[in-house]
């Protein structure tokens, strides 16, 4: 079984989806001969040809809008936005069209498209390249939002996203693209788009995280175990819909919860999870719910970037804080 990095797993899933369905096409900026700036589409242009792997003109709004039209008429476009900082011009099409087409035509026209974009910080990229915008997307009704945290989950979730009959935004934590690899079998098996992954079962504390934050959360989980704190670690993975049942069940068991995300705190998706628990699991709560998140400020340029990013130490601090509460 091949050891794949996340970027390789994504490429493998793209390739498989294109093999199995001739309606799957890829377009975006530099996805063709260059193979994408992160090489997610490396070799696909050569293999599937210039009509199925297309370099668009430099226009993000167009990429999204063209995907809507193509999806409504029989293709399954997988469009790439080069960095999440350039995703804003797509929001009009995502919110006003992609997410509504099925609903507003009462099922007559549909929109099976995927919009992929790398997101998040940690690789010292230039400004506007490191944003985390999942909360804005998750607020749009009719859209699915997915963030993988490992090569295997990237593979399975991306296949699911491409096969899904509705629009999916697939955000890839670029910090994890090459940071580790794991055995990924190209079985064509998709993962569910509405289930969180319980990475470790524990009894004392629930940690919910996604994307690149899973790394710090996992490290924190290990370190906390050393001091006898047993963590239920959840990779949210599908941010919309949120698998509320899994999180609630976990917190009902542990009574404590820390939520971790890279995006700014205020109105981040951590708020939704916390609010859901504050409504549905209040009596189980043994301590305040803590969010470990990016600051409510602009992601700094690379010299200060590390100070912005939530890391293992922050998570452990928050966990201890929550554990010490009584």
């Amino acid at each position, binding site marked *: 079984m091949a050891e794949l990095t996340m970027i390789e797993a994504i490429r493998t899933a793209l390739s498989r989806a294109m093999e199995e369905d001739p309606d799957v096409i890829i377009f975006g900026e530099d996805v063709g001969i260059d193979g994408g700036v992160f090489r997610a589409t490396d070799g696909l242009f050569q293999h599937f040809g210039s009509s199925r792997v297309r370099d668009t003109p430099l*226009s993000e709004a167009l990429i999204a*809008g063209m995907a809507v039209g193509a999806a409504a008429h029989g293709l399954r476009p997988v469009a790439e936005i080069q960095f999440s900082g350039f995703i804003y011009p797509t929001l*009009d099409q995502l919110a006003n069209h992609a997410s509504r087409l099925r609903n507003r035509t*009462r099922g007559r026209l549909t929109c099976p498209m995927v919009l992929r974009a790398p997101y998040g910080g940690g690789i010292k990229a230039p400004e506007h390249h490191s944003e985390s915008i999942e909360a804005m997307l998750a607020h749009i009704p009719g859209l699915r939002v997915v963030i993988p945290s490992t090569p295997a989950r990237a593979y399975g979730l991306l296949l699911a996203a491409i096969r899904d009959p509705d629009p999916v935004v697939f955000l890839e934590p670029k910090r994890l693209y090459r940071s580790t690899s794991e055995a990924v079998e190209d079985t064509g098996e998709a993962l569910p788009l509405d289930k969180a992954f319980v990475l470790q079962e524990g009894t004392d504390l629930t940690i919910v995280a996604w994307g690149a934050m899973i790394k710090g959360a996992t490290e924190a989980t290990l370190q906390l175990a050393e001091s006898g704190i047993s963590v239920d670690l959840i990779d949210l993975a599908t941010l919309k819909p949120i698998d509320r049942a899994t999180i609630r069940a976990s917190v009902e068991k542990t009574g404590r919860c820390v939520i971790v995300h890279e995006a700014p705190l205020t109105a981040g998706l951590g708020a939704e999870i916390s609010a859901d628990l504050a409504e549905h699991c209040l009596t189980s709560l043994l301590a305040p719910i803590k969010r470990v998140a990016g600051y409510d400020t602009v992601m700094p340029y690379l010299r200060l970037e590390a100070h912005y990013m939530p890391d293992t130490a922050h998570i452990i601090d928050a966990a201890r804080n929550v554990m010490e509460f009584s």
Partner: protein
Amino acid sequence: MPTRSAGFQINCSAFLDAVGKPIGDLPKFARNKDILVALYSAMVKTRTFDSKAIALQRTGQLGTYASSLGQEAIGVGVASAMTDDDVFVPSFREHGAQLWRGVSLEELFLYWGGDERGNDFAKSRQDFPVCIPVASQFPHAAGVALAKVQKGDPGAAVVVAGDGATSKGDFYEAMNVVGAWNLPVVFVINNNQWAISVPREGQTAAKTLAQKAIACGIPGEQVDGNDVIAVQAIISRALTRARAGKGGMLIECLSYRLGDHTTADDASRYREDAEVSAHWQLEPLIRLRNHLVATHGWTKEDEQLLLRTCKKEVEAATDTYLATAPEPARAMFDTLFAKAPADVAALFEEVGNG
């Protein structure tokens, strides 16, 4: 030392003058009475629908409505040049085109009455519904055309929007990719001279809207948008080109918005009656009727019968519309996803009034 890199020219075509007199030779189809009567009837039906829709809105029986008064030749001219292989991607003012494409009067009433079922057309099911966010439908047309090329499907996409829409980036970006990828899209601008209160000159310093095609390397032309023959002729030509793999084209149809922007608007706030009256002389129905009378023996009786028929149809559709009960509240979730996530399904019960 400047050297010349490129040169361009924009043309404008017309076949009937304002009183219906042919300007030179008519195209072949326009010498056929049946065809002309069909075009005329469609325009009359559109206008009949239009007045009824306004009346219904005024009496609280319809939502905000955008009249196509005076611009019927554009919708009818465009749609009559299309086939079932083509895909129509409309703005919110092309009722005439939608009717010609087979969208029913009932469906139009439902849509404008605030019922999503009005978008679930029984016919021309490949067509897009009305697009409210101005110009955001242009990229859809490019996507539809891409799908056609990719799948080897016949036909082209035809997208219509207003003069105001040409100021939006979407218009330009879509036209640009259509040029770059040689996609079969016909861009149609209903230049009715106004975008709510902003006159055509307020949108752009470009002398014509057709010349905007030059920016994208595709041909652009103007046409008298009150001349249904000219509209059909030029759209047919553009479609033939597109279907033959020769790429997209931009057609600016020159017309005038005789009514308010919508029923929520009061155009007297920003334009002179005199301007409107002058344009009543150029509107599309009179000239074709004159031509039918002069050349094809169209009689007062023919006219009366047509008006009666249109009225009856519209009244019948109105009755059906008014008798259609709203969907149950739950319908707002039923087609949100192919399969509703647990989350959404549960919230429907949980959050509110079910």
